[in-house]
């Protein structure tokens, strides 16, 4: 994965990546070594998220289970045809000597009707107190 990584002001990290995947195929989108790997499979209007826990402890996972809205700017009819999607999830797991929280945003788009889906992900990984 060619993940982009930047350190945040409060010592957290943000990781970003974007991949093109076939409809229904499982693709790795985000990978934080020693913490987790997040895979996505998009099929029709459904999205399957798989979080592989690579930390030494358990994972506490929260997902609303529903799509979030997408703000369209420009020609909305054209943009709607690309079937944009937006999903969020949060999980906590054991990082190096401390508990960390991962806040994930996943966005999907089908720019061309060719059976391919562009999946873009961002995760902010931050220390949490409890």
């Amino acid at each position, binding site marked *: 994965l060619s993940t982009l990584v930047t350190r945040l002001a409060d010592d957290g990290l943000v990781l970003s990546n974007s991949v093109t995947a076939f409809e229904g195929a499982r693709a790795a989108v985000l990978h934080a070594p020693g913490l987790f790997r997040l895979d996505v499979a998009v099929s029709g209007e459904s999205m399957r998220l798989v979080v592989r826990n690579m930390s030494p402890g358990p994972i506490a996972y929260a997902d609303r289970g529903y799509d979030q809205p997408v703000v369209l*700017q420009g020609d909305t009819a054209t943009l709607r045809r690309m079937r944009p999607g937006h999903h969020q999830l949060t999980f906590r797991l054991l990082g190096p000597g401390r508990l960390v929280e991962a806040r994930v*945003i996943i966005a999907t788009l089908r720019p*061309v009707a060719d059976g391919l889906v562009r999946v*873009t992900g961002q995760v902010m990984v931050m220390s949490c107190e409890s």
Partner: protein
Amino acid sequence: VRQHHERDDIGGLAPDQLVHGQGQVIIGQVVASSLPVAVLTVPGIIVVATQLVPPANMPGIILENVSSETLLVNDGASTQSVEPDARLVLAGMADGSARTLQVVIQDRSQAITLMLSSLAAQSGHSVLGQALVGSP
């Protein structure tokens, strides 16, 4: 640059009213021309615009910092600072290519992931932009 999105709000909504949960997703698409045209705006933070770059006339990307803080832009090869009211101009994109950028507000724990694609259009070259905006 702000031909389509002159205001710092969208549909009368302030930036924080657009946030659902821990962030928001914004998409936009325009046909590139010889003058800068906005692809998408993250209100109060950044305007992403495109302009055809000679001699190949491929769409270049312009990032304009409309916030009051310094932005850090990571393209995977390097990280560049963009001061308030300043612009960062990135090289032209070939049709069918895509580029992912990370934008971080330097003194805040807030990050934006930009995915930009260049597509061949009947009327020229279009640029599709997608912004994943994390809440601080």
